[in-house]
C-alpha cells in the first residue's frame, strides 16, 4: 500500500523516475516494482521520454551531428526539432512493437508498455549517448569499433554489452506488460527490426542509393533476364531432387533390410540377382567388350536429344541435362547397379547382423570432404552432373539409412508382436505398422539429407555441374562481391525453403498419437520463466 502512494507521478516524479531506473537496472524481470508501475499514469512515460529527448537534444545541439537529425540550423532549432523527433520516434516505434505483440497474442496495453519501455530507454539511451559522446571527444575511430586491441574496440564492446542488456530488459518488460511468452516477445522485437530493415531497404531503392543491397538486386535482375540465373537455379533444383529421390529409395530399402532377421540363402532368392545380371550385361555391352561403337552410339544419340530438348524444354531442360549425363554413362551405370544390387543381396542375406557395419560404412562416407569425394570420382565418372549426382546420393544415404533403421527399431516390440500374432505377414507388418510408426523419424532423416544436399550441390559446381555454386566460385575467383553473395543468398533461401517444406510434410506424416506423446517436448521455451 505504502508503495503505491510512493509511485504517484505528480507528487514526486523525479525521485520516482530515478528509483524506477535503479529498479529496472538492478532487478530485471519478476520484480513487483515493474508490475505496479505498469498500471501507473501515462504521464510517467511521457516525462521519461521527454527526459530522453532532452538528453538527445543536448547532445545534438553541442555536437552538431545528431544521430536522428542531420539538418543544419540554429542551436535552439536543432534542440527543439531533435527533442520532438526523439519523442515521436519513441512513440511510433513503440506503437509498431505494440501492434506486433497484439498480433502475436499479447494481452497488455499501450500505456503500460510505453511506461516500462521509457524506463528502460532513458537509462540505457543516456549511457549509450554518453559513450558515443566521450568517444567523439577522444577522437576515436568507429571504423574498428570491434577490434579488441584498440581503445575504441573496448568502447565498442561496452556499447555492445549495454545494447544486449537493454534488449534483455525490453524482453522482460514486454513479458510483464503483455503476459506473453519470452519467445513471442523476442519474435516481436525481431519482427520490428525486420520491418525497419525492409523500410530502410525500400528507401535505398527509392533514393537510388548505391549500396550493397541495391547492387545485389540489380545484379540479380540482370542475371535473371539473361537466362543464366534460372538455369543455375533449375540445375541446382533438379540435381538435388534427382539425388534425393534415388537416395530415399535406396536408403529406405537398405535401412529396412538391416532391421530384418537374416535369411538363409535359397535357390528362390537368386531371383533377386536378376537385376545384377542385367546391370552386368549393360556394363559389359557398353564398356568395349562388344566393340566401342555401342557406347559412342548412345553418347551421340543422347547428346542430340539433349540439344533438342534443351532448346524446347525450358523448365525441364536442366533435368534433361542430368538425365542425359546419367544415360550417357551406361558402363558406369552398369557398374554402380551391380554394386548396389550386390549390396542389396548381401544385406538381404545378413539382415540385422550387418546393421552395425552398414551404419559404420555410411558414417565413414559422410566424413569424406565433398571436394575430395568429387575429385576421387572424376577418374571413373568424369566431370559434370553425373559425378555430382552420384556423390550427392552417397552423402544423402547415411541420415536416411540411419533414421530408417532407428525409426523401425524404436517401434515398441509389443506392437510388432501383436501384429505378428494376429497374422500379419512380414510385408504387411512393415507397410502397415513399422513404416507408419517410423515415418516421422525417417522423414527427419530425409529432411536433414535434403538440406545438406542443397549445400553440397553448390560445391558440385567445382566439377562442372551447373548449379548456384557457379556464382559462388566465379565470384570468389573474380573477387566480385555481388556475384558470390547472390549465389550464397539464393542457396541459403533454397535450403530454408526445403527445410520448411519438408517440415510441413513431416507434420503430415506423423501419426496423431505420436504427436500427442511428443507435445510436451515441443512446448519447451526458448527462455525459462
Amino acid at each position, binding site marked *: 500500500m505504502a508503495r503505491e502512494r510512493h509511485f504517484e507521478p505528480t507528487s514526486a516524479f523525479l525521485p520516482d523516475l530515478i528509483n524506477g531506473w535503479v529498479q529496472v537496472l538492478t532487478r530485471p524481470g519478476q520484480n513487483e516494482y515493474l508490475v505496479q508501475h505498469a498500471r501507473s499514469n501515462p504521464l510517467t512515460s511521457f516525462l521519461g521520454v521527454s527526459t530522453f529527448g532532452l538528453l538527445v537534444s543536448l547532445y545534438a545541439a553541442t555536437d552538431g551531428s545528431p544521430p536522428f537529425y542531420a539538418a543544419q540550423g540554429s542551436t535552439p532549432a536543432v534542440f527543439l526539432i531533435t527533442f520532438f523527433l526523439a519523442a515521436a520516434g519513441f512513440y511510433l516505434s513503440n506503437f509498431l512493437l505494440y501492434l506486433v505483440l497484439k498480433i502475436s497474442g499479447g494481452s497488455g496495453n499501450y500505456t503500460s508498455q510505453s511506461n516500462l519501455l521509457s524506463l528502460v530507454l532513458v537509462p540505457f539511451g543516456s549511457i549509450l549517448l554518453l559513450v558515443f559522446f566521450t568517444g567523439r571527444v577522444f577522437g576515436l575511430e568507429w571504423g574498428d569499433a570491434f577490434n579488441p586491441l584498440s581503445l575504441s574496440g573496448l568502447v565498442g564492446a561496452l556499447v555492445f554489452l549495454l545494447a544486449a542488456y537493454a534488449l534483455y530488459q525490453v524482453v522482460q518488460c514486454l513479458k510483464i506488460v503483455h503476459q506473453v511468452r519470452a519467445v513471442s516477445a523476442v519474435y516481436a522485437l525481431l519482427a520490428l527490426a525486420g520491418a525497419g530493415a525492409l523500410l530502410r531497404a525500400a528507401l535505398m531503392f527509392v533514393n537510388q542509393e548505391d549500396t550493397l543491397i541495391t547492387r545485389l538486386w540489380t545484379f540479380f535482375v540482370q542475371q535473371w533476364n539473361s537466362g543464366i540465373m534460372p538455369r543455375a537455379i533449375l540445375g541446382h533444383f533438379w540435381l538435388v531432387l534427382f539425388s534425393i529421390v534415388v537416395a530415399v529409395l535406396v536408403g529406405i530399402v537398405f535401412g529396412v533390410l538391416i532391421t530384418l532377421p537374416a535369411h538363409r540363402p535359397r535357390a528362390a532368392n537368386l531371383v533377386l540377382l536378376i537385376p545384377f545380371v542385367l546391370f552386368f550385361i549393360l556394363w559389359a555391352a557398353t564398356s568395349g567388350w562388344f566393340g566401342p561403337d555401342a557406347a559412342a552410339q548412345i553418347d551421340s544419340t543422347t547428346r542430340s536429344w539433349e540439344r533438342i530438348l534443351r532448346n524446347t524444354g525450358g523448365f525441364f531442360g536442366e533435368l534433361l541435362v542430368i538425365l542425359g549425363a546419367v544415360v550417357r554413362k551406361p558402363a558406369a551405370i552398369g557398374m554402380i547397379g551391380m554394386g548396389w544390387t550386390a549390396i542389396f543381396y548381401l544385406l538381404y542375406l545378413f539382415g540385422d547382423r550387418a546393421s552395425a557395419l552398414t551404419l559404420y560404412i555410411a558414417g565413414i562416407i559422410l566424413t569424406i570432404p565433398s571436394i575430395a569425394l568429387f575429385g576421387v570420382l572424376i577418374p571413373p565418372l568424369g566431370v559434370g552432373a553425373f559425378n555430382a549426382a552420384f556423390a550427392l546420393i552417397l552423402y544423402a544415404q547415411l541420415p536416411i539409412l540411419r533414421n530408417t533403421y532407428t525409426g523401425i527399431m524404436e517401434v515398441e516390440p*509389443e*506392437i510388432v508382436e501383436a*501384429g505378428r*500374432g494376429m*497374422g500379419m*505377414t512380414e510385408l504387411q507388418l512393415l507397410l502397415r505398422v513399422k513404416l507408419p510408426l517410423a515415418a516421422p523419424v525417417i522423414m527427419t532423416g530425409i529432411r536433414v539429407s535434403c538440406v545438406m544436399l542443397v549445400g553440397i550441390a553448390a560445391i558440385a559446381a567445382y566439377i562442372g555441374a551447373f548449379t548456384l555454386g557457379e556464382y559462388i566460385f566465379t565470384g570468389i575467383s573474380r573477387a566480385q562481391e555481388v556475384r558470390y553473395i547472390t549465389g550464397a543468398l539464393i542457396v541459403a533461401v533454397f535450403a530454408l525453403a526445403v527445410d520448411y517444406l519438408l517440415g510441413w510434410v513431416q507434420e503430415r506424416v506423423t501419426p496423431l498419437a505420436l504427436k500427442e506423446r511428443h507435445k510436451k517436448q515441443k512446448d519447451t521455451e526458448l527462455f525459462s520463466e
Partner: protein
Amino acid sequence: MIKFENVTKIYPGLAKPAVDSLSFTVPSGEICTLVGPSGCGKTTTLKMVNRLIEPTQGAIYVPNGNGDLVNVMEVNPIQLRRKIGYVIQQIGLFPHWTIFENIATVPRLLGWDNDRIRRRAEELLEMMNMSPEYMDRYPHELSGGQRQRIGVARALAVDPPIMLMDEPFGAIDPINRNLLQNEFLRLQKEMKKTVLFVTHDIDEAIKMSDRICIMNVGGRLEQYDTPAAILSNPANEFVENFVGADRALKQLNLIRVEEIMDTAPVLLQLDQPAAEAWALLRERELRSAFVVGPDGRLRGYVVRRELRDKTGTVGDYFTRADMGIEISTTLRDALSEMLAMDYNTVCIVDNHNRVQGMLSIEMIQKKIAESNVNGDDQENGA
C-alpha cells in the same frame, strides 16, 4: 480343444529346455491358465500355439475349420494366427490407428467388407460396455482399462474358437483388474471359447480358470487339474508352496454361497402374530429368525425373547436390517463380510433382495473341514 503332446522347446545355444516335454489337453470351451514363477516357460508355451515360437519336439493340435484336430506345424502360420485370438501383456494396440481400425485388423487381413467390419465392431464395443463413439478415438485417448477391453475386442473380432491371452490384465490396477476379470468371465459364459491364459498370479488363475497348469522353472509341468483339486490336493511341495499357505481360504473363492447355503430357513412374516412366531422359534430351538415382507423381500430380523408373551404381530418387534448377501458371492467374500459386520448368520438374497437362503459361519467351517478330509492332513498345521 488344444492338445499338447510331449512339447519341448530348447532355445538355440541353451543347454536346458525352456519347455520340457509338456503334455496336456485343454477341453473345448474351457479357460486353462498357465501359471508359474518367471522363467517357467509359460509364455513360450502360449506362443508355440500360434507359432510365434516353434517347438523343438512334439506337437500341438488345434481344431481346424471342420473341428478335426491338426498339428499347428502343418498349417500356414499366417492363416493359423488369423484364426486364433491373441491378447498380449502390454495390450499392443496400434497407436496410429483408431479403435475401429484396431478392431478391424484381422477382419481386414481376411478381406471382410467395410460394412460387415463396422457392424462387428459396434457389436464388440457393446459387448465391452463401451459406446460406439469410441470407434474413432485413438488408443492414447483411452484409459488403461478401456484399452484392455479394446485389446480383447480386437482378439474377438473374427470370433475365433481359440484365444491366447498373455497376462492380459497384468498392467492394470487391482480394482479395474477385478472388473475386467468379471467382465471376461461373464462374456466367456456366452462365448465358450477355448482360452489359454498366462499369468503369474495364482489368485487370478484360481478365479479365471476351469483348469490350471502349474509350471516350474525349466518348463516342467508340476500339476494340471481343476482349481479345486489343486487347492485341496497339491501334487507336490512345489505346488503347495506356489499356491500358498492360505489355500484353505483360497478354496473359499471357488465356492459360491448358493452351493452350501440352507435353502429352507425359518422365515417369519411381518403380519405373523408374535405368539405364534415365538412358539415356532422355540420349537425349532432358534434364538432369532429373518423377517420377510409379503413380497418375499428381506426386511430384517427378530430375536426370540423380544417376542415372548407379546401380543401383536412380528412387524411390531423386528429390527430393520439390510444384511442380505448376493447369492452369487464367493464364500470368501461372504465370510469376510460376516467377520467385518460381526454376524454369525446372514441371509442370502437374489438381486431383487428376495430371500433365497441362509448362511452361518458354522456351515463355512463344516465345508472347509470336509475339503480337508478329501485332501491331505498337513493343512491342520497351517
